[in-house]
């Protein structure tokens, strides 16, 4: 389905669509309030954006610095050019440990690489330990939001799901009760896992350490109980210095959920005696995006999800309507770089209102990149009929006479045609909207009569 088709489907359940819109607006509103409590908020955004500019301009050097320092710390560093290489590396580490059950904290990168299905195909059980991710995993769904993976579900639906999967009381929708059930269930999985997988929020070149942020502490729980920690990191997640974290940690939680700070910001630098830490540095299209000058800024993204919460389209169409791992505005500028054909409707799933750009903590010019992707889409696979009508329009607008003739034809047609023809099913504008009443003369005609 294209985005418009999925969006129309989503809006059919108007009550749920309204609830979805209001729930995410609530998060956006919280973000507004907490960000306004920081007088230097806009400077922080500017600073974060500049630090990322520096990172992107010197990415290779920082990555090598990170590799040297991490290796010195006893971390085993791997490189993966694409998702296949990444998945294979993870599997090899698991096989070496004879591990057939892993726990994994939230990682959009592993979603992007479809790691779960790959491992399951090789007889490894993967348990997502973030509560929202566990919920969608039970439902065999992908996350619908990168920070709030199960935001498309209401508590009644979760109660039913837990009744079926975890044998909770039927009809008990109490969030504390349901969370407790998940806690007991996940604890078993934590104890049984020899290997824990996490994502990475920030890798620090200067020290060779990396930082994982969670609200639930599930990354730490997994890692500390396991023998082996595998951290999967996109190569753009590098920061030059440890002190840069002060800027990014202040921005991340406030932008994501409106919290002053994420509950657990855990630094990993050395493996404990007798244990192993592996880090896999993954490209998977990032270098290609870096080479696209107009789109390279998209790699600044710290995956806070603020652009989704603010987007009037996302709130009213849901994460699944984007059919891409990262949904919402940021997804609509990242995904076309991975597969332009598959994601060609995404740059058009926007009014270019610019709200995403203004909430972005690293100042990615998201709506301008959406505009630029539109130009790329039409260049490479311009729909012929649409292309032709646009060419005609350009012919009209560059010629005053042609413009006048077609304008008055249109106005006269609107005046004389019966409504049944004006609101023909092919006139999509008129399906749910009236057209303006056609005036008897254009401004141009009025001006000629009255002023010249």
């Amino acid at each position, binding site marked *: 389905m294209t985005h418009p088709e999925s*969006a129309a489907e989503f809006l059919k359940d108007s009550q749920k669509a309204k609830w979805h819109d209001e729930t995410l607006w609530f998060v956006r509103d919280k973000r507004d309030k907490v960000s306004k409590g920081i007088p230097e*908020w806009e400077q922080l955004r500017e600073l974060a954006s500049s630090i990322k500019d520096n990172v992107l301009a010197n990415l290779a050097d920082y990555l090598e610095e990170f590799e040297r320092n991490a290796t010195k710390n006893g971390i085993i560093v791997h490189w993966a050019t694409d998702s296949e290489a990444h998945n294979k590396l993870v599997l090899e580490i698991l096989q070496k440990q004879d591990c057939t059950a892993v726990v994994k904290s939230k990682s959009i990168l592993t979603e992007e690489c479809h790691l779960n299905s790959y491992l399951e195909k090789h007889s490894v059980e993967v348990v997502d330990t973030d509560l929202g991710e566990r919920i969608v995993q039970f439902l065999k769904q992908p996350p619908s939001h990168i920070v709030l993976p199960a935001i498309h579900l209401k508590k009644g639906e979760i109660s039913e799901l837990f009744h079926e999967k975890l044998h909770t009381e039927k009809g008990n929708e109490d969030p504390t009760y349901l969370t407790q059930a998940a806690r007991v269930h996940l604890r078993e999985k934590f104890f049984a896992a020899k290997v824990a997988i996490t994502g990475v929020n920030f890798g620090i070149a200067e020290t060779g350490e990396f930082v994982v942020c969670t609200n639930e502490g599930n990354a730490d729980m997994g890692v500390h109980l396991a023998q082996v920690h595998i951290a999967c990191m996109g190569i753009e997640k590098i920061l030059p210095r440890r002190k840069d974290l002060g800027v990014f940690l202040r921005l991340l939680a406030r932008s994501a959920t409106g919290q002053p700070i994420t509950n657990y910001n855990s630094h990993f630098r050395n493996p404990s005696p007798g244990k192993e830490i592996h880090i896999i540095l993954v490209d998977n299209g990032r270098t290609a995006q870096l080479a696209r000058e107009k789109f390279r800024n998209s790699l600044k993204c710290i995956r806070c999800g603020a652009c989704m919460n603010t987007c*009037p389209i996302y709130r009213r169409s849901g994460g699944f309507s984007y059919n891409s791992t990262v949904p919402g505005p940021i997804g609509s500028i990242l995904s076309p770089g991975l597969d332009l054909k598959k994601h060609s409707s995404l740059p058009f799933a926007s009014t*270019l209102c610019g709200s995403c750009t203004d909430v972005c903590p690293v100042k990615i010019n998201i709506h301008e990149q959406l505009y630029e992707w539109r130009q790329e889409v*039409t260049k490479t696979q311009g729909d012929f009929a649409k292309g032709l009508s*646009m060419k005609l*329009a350009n012919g009209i607008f560059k010629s005053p006479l042609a413009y006048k003739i077609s304008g008055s034809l249109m106005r006269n047609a609107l005046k004389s045609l019966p409504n049944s023809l004006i609101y023909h099913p092919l006139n999509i504008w008129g399906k749910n909207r009236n057209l303006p009443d056609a005036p008897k003369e254009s*401004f141009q005609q009025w001006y000629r009569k009255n002023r010249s």
Partner: protein
Amino acid sequence: MKANSPSVALFIPCYVDQFYPQVGIATLELLEKLGCQVTYPSGQTCCGQPLANAGYAQETVGTARHFIKTFQDFDYVVCPSGSCTLHVKEHFPAIAGLEKEQEALEHKIYELIEFITDVLKIEKLEGKFPHRVGFHSSCHGQRGLHLSSGSELNQPPFNKARKLLENLAGLEWVELERADECCGFGGTFAVTEEALSIQMGKDRLADHLQHKTEILTGGDMSCIMHLQGIATRTKQELKFLHLAEILNQALS
């Protein structure tokens, strides 16, 4: 502005010219009342935004060249649309041979309200308009041209249109739940994402109706055309006027 005042050219967007001549007339009369010498260069057409936003920016070279030539000899270009103004400023393709003229145009084209507050430096207008007015903040005017502060940014609140409107005797300003959410017009978006566009428009209208807006106004007729179209179809008791119409009426 007096006798040797700078020359102001009026740019009336194509859909305003064809569907809303009264907005063009109000803009012209208002500027004249404020002492400007205004010319409407004949032969003007469109800025090309509908094509460019649909992904056909490379097809707008002819339109942009024509636009630059039409307006190059004036000191200022004033337009009753934030969206079209922004397009000329930021999204015109580079026109070979007219580099200087194009750069000059980007700096001398103004949306109507910002021309009044920033160029004419008018702090307040004396007049009356005894109605409850709800303001639709169009995205390109707000986030593009910075005609008002955005709810997303940590900045002191301001709104150039509100400053002019609030001084009018009898005018009641309507506070909305979501002061600057998009109405869902979005050019071709209105047609290619019809379901979303309608829902967004309905939600904006509901906010205005809930807060008892009598007249819904804004700086862009495109947003208003969309909102009015939905309101008429769903038989809502709401009136719609462009800011130029309110100010022009209030000053008469």
